[in-house]
């Protein structure tokens, strides 16, 4: 039940009885068959605690669960959609950028601050998303939105990658993240906030960077 890319801005999913999809509310463009869209009170499998965690974090992205029998077209705001197929590892992605994902994936939230101390908290503000990042683990398909599409940059132990927090979309692998300032970067006063910081990712994996330094 993977997502099929219709074009760069739309994906199609087949919904079968017994299988469940989650998507951002309002992301359905069209559907055929008997499909129901239910706002998800718990925000997924995280349970009530997860929902509360989100409220605390001021996370604005409500999800809905999609069930039934039919096909559904997903898209949102004309944004570019990228499909990532997970094969067991964990994807870390900003909740705002999640368009839809299969229910076979285990959802969770991660407090980014745990890996970066105080800087992590600042980064939360910087990415504008709150302190929590959504984690998706297991096997399944994820459709992610980005402004203008994404490029994948590999992360290796010898070559850590530095990313503009506004351009960060997601990452997977065994990766440590750290928010830091770079001498000179602070001079780079760009549009919006966050330009004074960079997100440093090290370890083994890959980061998805969007072709824009503007959040969606």
């Amino acid at each position, binding site marked *: 039940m993977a997502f099929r890319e*219709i*074009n*760069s*801005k*739309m994906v199609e999913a087949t919904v079968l009885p017994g299988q469940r999809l989650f998507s951002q*509310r*309002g*992301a*359905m*463009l*069209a*559907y*055929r068959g008997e499909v*129901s*869209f*239910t*706002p998800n*009170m718990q925000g997924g499998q995280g349970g009530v605690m997860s929902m509360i965690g989100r409220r605390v974090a001021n996370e604005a992205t*409500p999800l*809905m669960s999609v069930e039934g029998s039919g096909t559904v*077209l997903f*898209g*949102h*705001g*004309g*944004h570019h*959609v990228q499909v990532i197929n997970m094969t067991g590892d964990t994807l870390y992605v900003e909740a705002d950028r999640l368009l839809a994902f299969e229910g076979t994936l285990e959802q969770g939230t991660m407090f980014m601050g745990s890996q970066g101390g105080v800087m992590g908290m600042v980064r939360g503000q910087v990415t504008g998303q709150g302190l929590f990042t959504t984690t998706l683990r297991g096997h399944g398909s994820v459709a992610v939105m980005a402004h203008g599409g994404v490029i994948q940059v590999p992360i290796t132990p010898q070559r850590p990658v530095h990313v503009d927090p506004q351009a960060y979309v997601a990452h997977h692998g065994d990766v440590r993240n750290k928010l830091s300032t770079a001498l000179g970067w602070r001079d780079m006063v760009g549009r919006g906030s966050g330009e004074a910081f960079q997100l440093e990712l090290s370890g083994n994996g890959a980061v998805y960077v969007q072709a824009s330094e503007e959040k969606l």
Partner: protein
Amino acid sequence: MYGAPGGGPTVYDPLTLPSDDNVNNYTFCVELKGSQWFLQKGKMIAYYGQMDFNGIGHGRLDRLVRTSFHSPLHASDWVVAEGSGKMLLADRAFDVNSYDLEDGNLTIRSGNLLAFQPTLSLKQSIVPGFLTLIGTGKFVAASNGPVVFMEPPIRVDPQALVGWADCPSPCHHYDHGYMTGLMGGLRAMTGVGGASGEEHQFEFVGAGTVLLQSSEALMAEQATGAVPQQAGVPGGGGGPTGPGQQAGAPRLPGQLGDLQRRFGL
């Protein structure tokens, strides 16, 4: 002759530009040979040759308007291009494509229609915010992302709808299912849990084609103009037009405030 930028993108000139076809996904080239095309204001980006652009309703275009353009409320958005040469059309880096209508009819959101040949007749659809093209000829439409064609039966989020051809106008589909039961009651009363955003779609049945785009944000601009304030005209019977918040209480079908918001006014 100036050299090409070293193995880079194709350099076009009046001879190599396509006639009445796409240059790339976002740019369309129209060839005029002493002929005319209707086009939306501000959508011409460049042209070779000699061209005149006149607003509709200016004197000598009257006959053309009488036969081809039947939407006085939209007249200020359109101009007639005439002359000889090749003209490039584009719209906000949206995907543009041309379509041929053969003795057919197509209803399209006014903001998505870019240009059309005068052999087609433009009328204002009874559905607010949409225009209907009838006849045989070519037109150019812009969309956020390539247009996706689907056949009924299908239910479509109103904001994703670009238009439809041949099949009957859509009807409303309201999903009240989730409103029932304990959780439903809770949502209705407290608004907690919110709405899925998918409670209402346009439902299409019959034989034809439905045109969709990925856009939960309506293509702004294009004042569609108010419909005549007459009884019986959808959207014209009065009623508030403010952008309503998605309240917990279910809206009754036909309630105008909802209709107008859903149709994109």
